[in-house]
């Protein structure tokens, strides 16, 4: 008799905590699903970079592309820079530094790409020269269609996961 009385009392003691935990747990369970980050499908659209005829010369060229991204409740239209290497059969390079994702710029004077954030340097063909970047600038999928150079834009996140 004494024993059941004791267990009854301890049950009553933890009951409030149990109910609180139950409420919080059921909302938290939903919260976990609710807040789960969403993978955005990579856009596989081919985006115009430039006419092949205007891509000449020994220097890398900076060109703008306009890409659409589906990001949650919005479709965003963003402008990105890409590098075109006419000297390397119009290979297209991402301007995103493989290190921390800063935007790399072409330095005419020193004939190299440099990252403004952590001083990674890349040669005119995109190969890594020095600095913390783990590799050279990433090439983007490209093709020539009706005399136009086109790329598929891939963000850094997808690059590193691949």
């Amino acid at each position, binding site marked *: 008799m004494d024993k059941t009385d004791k267990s009854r009392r301890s049950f*009553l*003691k933890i*009951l*409030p905590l*149990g*109910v*609180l935990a*139950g*409420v*919080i747990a*059921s*909302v*938290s369970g*939903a*919260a976990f*699903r*609710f*807040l*789960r980050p969403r993978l955005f499908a990579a856009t596989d659209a081919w985006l115009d970079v430039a006419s092949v005829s205007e891509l000449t010369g020994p220097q890398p060229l900076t060109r*703008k592309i*306009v890409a659409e991204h*589906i990001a*949650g*409740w*919005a*479709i*965003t*239209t*963003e*402008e990105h820079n890409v590098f075109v290497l006419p000297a390397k059969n119009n290979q297209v390079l991402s301007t995103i530094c493989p290190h921390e994702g800063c935007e790399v710029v072409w330095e005419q004077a020193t004939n190299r790409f440099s990252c403004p954030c952590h001083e990674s340097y890349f040669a005119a063909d995109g190969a890594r020269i020095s600095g913390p970047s783990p590799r050279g600038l990433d090439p983007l999928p490209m093709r020539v269609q009706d005399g136009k150079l086109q790329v598929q834009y891939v963000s850094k996140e997808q690059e590193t996961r691949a």
Partner: protein
Amino acid sequence: MTPRGWLQTTGAVVGILLLVQFLTGTLMAFYYVPSVDHAHTTVSYIEKVVSSGSWLRSLHHYGSQWLAVFAFIHVIRLFLDRAYTSNRTQWIVAILLLALVMAAGGTGFSLPWDARAFFSTRIAEGLMAGLPFVGRYARVWLLGGSDISTLTLSRFFALHVLLIPALIAAVVVWRVFGSNLARLFGPRHAIAGGVVFLALAVWCLKYPAPLGPSVAEATAEYLPRPGSQFLWLYQSLKYIPGGLGSITGVVLPGIVLTVLILLPWLKRARLIGASLLGAGVVVVLLMTTAAYLSDRRDQRTREQLSKQVAEEIAWRSKPFEPARLTLTPASTTTEAMHGGPPVMYMKFCVNCHGEHGEGARQGKLNFPPLLDVSAKPRRTVDDIVGLLKDPTAYGLEPPMRSFSTKLTEPQMREIAEWIVKLKR
């Protein structure tokens, strides 16, 4: 356990429901955007796309209505227990909570920005505008301007998710501070709170919170209805001549709540409190019932309301439509995306020279077309930029004026580059 004992648990139920409101509200803030162009999109996104979004939003929506009911019952229970003499803090906290919960419900209803939300905002506007003496100012202060706009939505958002919850938290802390938590939330409280939460959770699995098409799609026939906790007010406003609506909706409840807060210090407290609360219960029950009945009785109202429900169901089953955001400099978008005129052309030039550079004639004034203008002498891109800076140097007369203070050099160049491409 006596029934009387179970009545002691109303405060705990209010506490649990408040906890649910805080949790679900915080979660929805992870997606919601308080702006007239995205509010409805983001709420639809929560409703249609995000996992568990519909349930969490439903918990918040119906939870707010249950909360109002339990906060009211809690006040009545405390009055019956004469808490206004035995525990003043508890009494005042309960009154303040009831007021704050109603305020939170009122501001929250506007946030989804569907037709229902828009009309709720309109009513809030009308109630403020009708206040004696301060009406004009109260209205524009609430709206953030002379009319309902995106500023209004921001204000309701700030009130709903920052100011009012902070006040509620402060009031709750005041109540809980120094109390014995185990006595405040004992086994019986826990059971009552748990049962109410379970009922709410199951209810919300079955009934999603209402959400209609965005305000923009609302038709003139739309019949707005408030949340259940405001039905009494909605119905009362039908019987009261226009100007007195604010007295009923804001001033009177304000006075009642103030008197109730002061009850511990009043003589004949029992009588005053009993009459006020009694009248309150009667008005709320009577008017809420009347609201339900009048919607049932009138056939046209009934048909329109069921049409609205059908529209909402149809809209709900449509796939989510994302918003389009343009994050590029204005120049490249207009050019690259549409081939249309630059933004600055649309701002300064289009009124006279037309959307396609076709020109126009207004009385005696002749605005020349810009088509094929590059074929004329002194009309290269550089010339046009120079001309935009100093028209007279290029032999042009007013009304063509200089834009050197209005446009930057790149903007002029962008316009010029677009103009030279115009062909007949």
